[in-house]
């Protein structure tokens, strides 16, 4: 958008005289870019720190592209074998290795800035995934996926999966011992797929594992296919965001019919550009100071050695943990002579399948049980949708337990615990943890909603104690101001769906009743427990039958026995 800034002079009458004006005139006569500038230059975007999470993902992707292009200049995606001729690192000199590994060493030790770019690239990938996940958490907990943004949620989910593919394919390129073992695990998982597993393994590796093809194939996936798709989807993601206009947090003056915020030019151009440079800067700092993936310490791929305590990158930990938790005994079935290894299929296919399916379908399920077809542009406060918030926390709990289980060996060595007991604890926790987290979160949300009601009805505690003539003591409460109150009452507590009866007046059974009934049950699960927002009538009633929360000095001539009763902060009703 910054490039269009100079085009503002376009509208100068007659012939433009300034160089910028001339350029703008030239461009506009050929593209009518003025329309675009008029549309977007002062477009309003709402402001909140959490809207920056998606930006972090976007900008770390840009850093990935920049550092990635640098790396492709020196990396050779070949599995041909060579003896490493470089003198450094000394432990690798003369070793037999693939050209891919050798070129990774050369770019680290001989190219100036090569190691820096490798490390920036790796850190950017980790931050990219982390930013995507936290961005999705923001979207989920505030209900930003509701109509009309369900489709953009799907675009985002697809990008999450592409991000995993990008990370995995990139991690495997240097052809070191660790990444080779990662590929080997992948091969084992692929082989477990019924019917087509063995052939799929051949398809991926061009023959038996590891073969001589996997690195060049992953290279194409990593630098062409996945980033190409990601770029296209990012464009779509941003296009839909602009089309739908950004959501906004609730507050005074913010409605589903307007957008309140700052103009793109100059505020967001400056803030976003600044944010890009800060993110790039922080990633550069990480790449400069924090070593990551020192492949020369692991050595080139060899199918024999593996070291303990080897973890995948963090975003893959949940799969690793899932594999580790599954008990092996009795879980490999042989049916008509064919082998069905459930000890691999369940943790590596079914578990991630369930997790991703939940994320994919959630917006549609929630829309159905809410039973409204409105557009939603004002975000929810997470407490106001207790079941959604609780489901989200339960999901994260499962994800975190799996990730921790993927690090069970590190937990064992760091805390001197038995690996078997840790695994058993996680085996139980993966079932109990999410349910418990759901329950606690839902209770906390309902509690917070009740607290909000309490605040709206009775105001803030002021700390001022007053004694009446009859000897009664009360604490004076200060009512909420309009903005504070609005934030707490401006939401809609949905009720469970109401469905039409099973049969009509003549006793004819209605088609589709069963399905309706099931949706209603699900809807009850969501909205049975709810706390309604305070209405003006309730507030008035609370004041009228006041439990002396508020004090009108005229009615109760009080004896000022309180603390700091200096100013007349109490208000009548």
């Amino acid at each position, binding site marked *: 958008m910054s490039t269009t800034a100079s085009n503002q002079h376009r509208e100068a009458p007659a012939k433009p005289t300034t160089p910028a004006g001339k350029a703008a005139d030239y461009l506009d006569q050929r593209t009518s870019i003025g329309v675009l500038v008029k549309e977007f230059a002062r477009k309003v975007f709402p402001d909140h720190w959490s809207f920056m999470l998606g930006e972090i993902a976007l900008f770390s992707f840009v850093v990935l592209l920049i550092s990635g292009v640098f790396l492709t200049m020196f990396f050779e995606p070949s599995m041909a074998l060579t003896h490493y001729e470089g003198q450094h690192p000394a432990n690798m000199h003369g070793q037999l290795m693939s050209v891919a590994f050798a070129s990774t060493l050369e770019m680290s030790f001989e190219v100036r800035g090569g190691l820096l770019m490798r490390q920036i690239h790796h850190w950017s990938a980790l931050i990219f995934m982390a930013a995507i996940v936290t961005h999705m958490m923001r979207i989920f907990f505030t209900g930003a996926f509701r109509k009309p943004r369900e489709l953009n949620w799907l675009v985002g989910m697809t990008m999450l999966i592409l991000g995993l593919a990008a990370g995995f394919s990139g991690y495997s390129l240097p052809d070191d011992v660790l990444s080779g073992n990662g590929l080997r695990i992948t*091969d084992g998982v692929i082989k477990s797929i019924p019917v087509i597993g063995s052939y799929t393994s051949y398809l991926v590796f061009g023959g038996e594992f590891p073969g001589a093809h996997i690195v060049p194939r992953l290279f194409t996936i990593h630098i062409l296919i996945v980033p190409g798709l990601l770029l296209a989807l990012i464009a779509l993601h941003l296009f839909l965001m602009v089309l739908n206009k950004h959501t906004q947090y609730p507050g005074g003056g913010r409605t589903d019919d307007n957008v309140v915020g700052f103009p793109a030019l100059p505020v967001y151009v400056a803030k976003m550009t600044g944010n890009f440079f800060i993110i790039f800067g922080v990633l550069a700092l990480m790449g400069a100071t924090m070593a990551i993936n020192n492949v020369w310490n692991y050595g080139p791929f060899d199918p024999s050695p*593996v070291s303990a305590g080897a973890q995948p990158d963090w975003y893959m930990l949940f799969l690793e943990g899932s594999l580790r938790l599954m008990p*092996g005994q*009795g879980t490999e079935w042989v049916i008509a002579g064919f082998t069905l290894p459930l000890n*691999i299929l369940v943790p590596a296919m079914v578990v991630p399948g369930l997790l991703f399916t939940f994320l994919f379908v959630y917006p549609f399920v929630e829309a159905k049980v809410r039973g409204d077809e409105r557009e939603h542009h004002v975000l929810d406060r997470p407490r106001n949708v207790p079941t959604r918030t609780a489901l989200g926390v339960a999901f994260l709990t499962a994800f975190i337990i799996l990730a921790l289980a993927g690090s069970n060996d590190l937990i064992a060595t760091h805390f001197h615990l038995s690996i078997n007991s840790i695994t058993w604890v996680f085996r139980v926790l993966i079932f109990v943890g999410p349910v418990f987290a759901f329950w606690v979160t839902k209770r906390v949300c309902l509690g917070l909603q009740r607290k909000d009601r309490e605040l709206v009805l009775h105001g803030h505690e002021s700390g001022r104690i007053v004694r009446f003539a009859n000897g009664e003591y009360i604490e004076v409460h200060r009512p909420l101001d309009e903005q504070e109150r609005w934030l707490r009452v401006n939401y809609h507590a949905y009720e469970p769906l109401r469905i039409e009866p099973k049969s009509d007046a003549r006793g004819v059974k209605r088609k589709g009743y069963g399905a309706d009934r099931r949706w209603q049950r699900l809807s009850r699960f969501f909205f049975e427990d709810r706390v309604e927002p305070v209405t003006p009538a309730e507030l008035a009633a609370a004041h009228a039958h006041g439990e002396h929360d508020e004090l009108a000095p005229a009615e109760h001539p009080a004896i000022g026995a309180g603390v700091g009763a200096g100013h007349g902060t109490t208000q009548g009703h």
Partner: protein
Amino acid sequence: MSENKNTPAGTSHEVTATERNTDVVHAERFTDPGLHPHKLRLADTDPQAAKRTERIVTLLFVLSVLGTIGTLVAYVAVPPEGPTSSVRLSTLLLGLGLAVSLLGIGIAGIHWAKTLMSDHEMVQERHPMRSSDETRDGAVADLNVGIAESGIGRRGLLKGAFISALALFPLTIAVPLIGSVGGDWNISKFKHTLWKTGMRLAIDPSGRLIKAADVTVGSVFHVIPDVTQEYRESHEWITEKSKAVVLLVRLKPEDITSEQGEGWSYDGIIAFSKICTHVGCPVALYEQQTHHLLCPCHQSTFDVANGAKVVFGPANRPLPQLPITVDDEGYLVAQDDFAEPIGPSYWERLK
């Protein structure tokens, strides 16, 4: 788009659009108090503060330039020559310069936006995503005209030919690709390794042969088949080694409670495939006291003394045992290949 307009603070208008759900309608709702009143910042009221902020932003940009210069100096002055420490130093200096250069611009931009640029909230209207009925009708009409003009509805044969041609042409690319992408597609290779009758056991990676007498009780050997040095520098070898690696231990013969075949061990020397039956990691950790073999990837644990049966973890089957004996010269040799496919399970494993 309509002109931006600031809603004057204090105007209130109904916020919650009327619900389609008729069940929850409160008698009344609170009214929207409107936007928060705008608060002036220090730089808005105090010209000196504004001037100071301007100087800070300028300084940050200058700092960025210095960072860039620093990187260029580091590039020339500190080349990564020699060992790891020198590479680390070069990386550190280049990276710090880069970080200062970038952070200078970034922090300056944000500070500028937050302190000096206008912070008056603006309000713009939203319009429903749904296009108007008129537009929709027009779109449907246009589509119908287009379809009618193509005649695809009337010309059934043409429609069939068109769809067939489109559906079939990808085969021209897919068939050659799928035909070649899996190599020879001969998945029976999973069932065989380099081991065969009389093949000597060698130490990984040196290739030195192993005499039974060299193996003391409690010791562990990482073993490969005895092949030529030349072969061991080929690609084929890496693939074969991925299946053939073996872990060899010597127990007291009386400690061995069971093995997978009669006479498959030699005097307490017992050999198992090193490839985990779970997902194929090398099972590399041996615990002498318990005779347990642990896979470091997913912690499958096998009892070497008891036919490598699974005692813990996600693996289901024991590690296949390599039947061994000694030849005339006292070297350990394989009696035969493994009796079953090594490594992870797959659909056709028992076929």
